[in-house]
């Protein structure tokens, strides 16, 4: 029922986490649209930023980010992808 709201608030939450973790003080969660690429041309993050972010996500949501390179790149592409990934990792506990 409230899956849409959950997704949106999770995205908001993750955007805030990105800003806090990577010291992007001049940004607000609203400045990172869910579909904006996080790496290269988008927000301009690099591989070490991704590591830092993975650590923060793992701590915050109690999930384990597998380092399977291809999938990780996909999951970390945008805030929306990250939210979907976090939700899917948490799913077993939610029911």
């Amino acid at each position, binding site marked *: 029922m409230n899956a849409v709201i959950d997704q949106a608030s999770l995205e908001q939450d993750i955007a805030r986490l990105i800003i806090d973790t990577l*010291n992007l003080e001049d940004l607000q969660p609203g400045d990172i649209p869910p579909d904006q690429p996080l790496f290269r041309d988008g927000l301009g993050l690099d591989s070490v930023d991704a590591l830092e972010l*993975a650590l923060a996500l*793992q701590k915050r949501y109690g999930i*384990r*980010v597998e380092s399977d390179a291809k999938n990780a790149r996909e999951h970390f592409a945008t805030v929306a992808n990250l939210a979907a990934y976090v939700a899917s990792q948490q799913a077993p506990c939610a029911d």
Partner: protein
Amino acid sequence: MSGTRVQANHWATQKERGSFALMKLTAFAVRRLGRRTMQPVLHLVVLYFFVFGRARRNVRQYQAYLAEWSGRAELRPTTRRVFGQFMAFADSLLDRLDVWRGTLGAAQVSLHDPADVRGRLHRSLSGERGQILVCTHLGNLDVCRALAEMEEKVPLNVLVHNRHAAHFNRLQSEAGDRQLRLLQVSEVDAALMLDLSQRLDRGEWIAIAGDRIPLQDGRRVVVDFLGHRAAFAQGPWLMAGLLRCPVHLMCCLKIDGRYQIRLEPFLEAASWERGQREQAIAGWAQRYADRLAQLCLLAPWQWFNFYAYWQAESEGDADASPRRAAR
């Protein structure tokens, strides 16, 4: 950069293999024959490497740079002094075996720890977060285990770059040493960082060498070491920043026949400003190289990095900013 990559004598591919075989043989022989019998044998083996190996040139370069950087003429390389450094290595191999067999007693090891890093180790047994120890191949790292094992009981995770870790673990457990864990690290990835982060949270400590560069991982930074450009690993500093934990330096030097474990705080809060990561890491690596240079003066012949350590003169000159000894 590419020059360092093509060097056939990268330590991770070559040196450890040689010394592993040598050590395995020595471990066997020492158990059978005893240290007194083995000593001359080992000296002969080292003499062989001295005469026929390529390491002699590298040791000579190290001694020349150290003498020049410190302005101490008595450190200038002579055949006798270069050989002395080889013999110091043979001696450290014998001592290593004593450590493995537990026959190197606490009485032969002293602790130089003015800032009480050891106290911090103890506190992590009662719930405080673990920290990072950056080690060096100046002196005898294995003796540091005398500290980790004999009394402290703090779980120590030793990160190693080379693929001989499994052999090494086996050899160690054959020698009766099961306390510490060797983790082979080929690259810094999310799974490893999470694992290490959880270990720190449990109060475990991490030890990693600061003076060797990994074979595959391109994360290295060129700094000034003994007045010349040398590549150092970014790994320890990157790790400290990601895991947000303090870093201490550890080494174990043999001074007047007795081992001295030296512990000192190095970095209290590892973090970087946005966009300043590279600069922060380069700054820490340079400060580490500076400190390492000073430590070399305490035990000049115990520098056991026998591979080509410095960049060739043609490399890395673009960003070269020659510096004098910082005092």
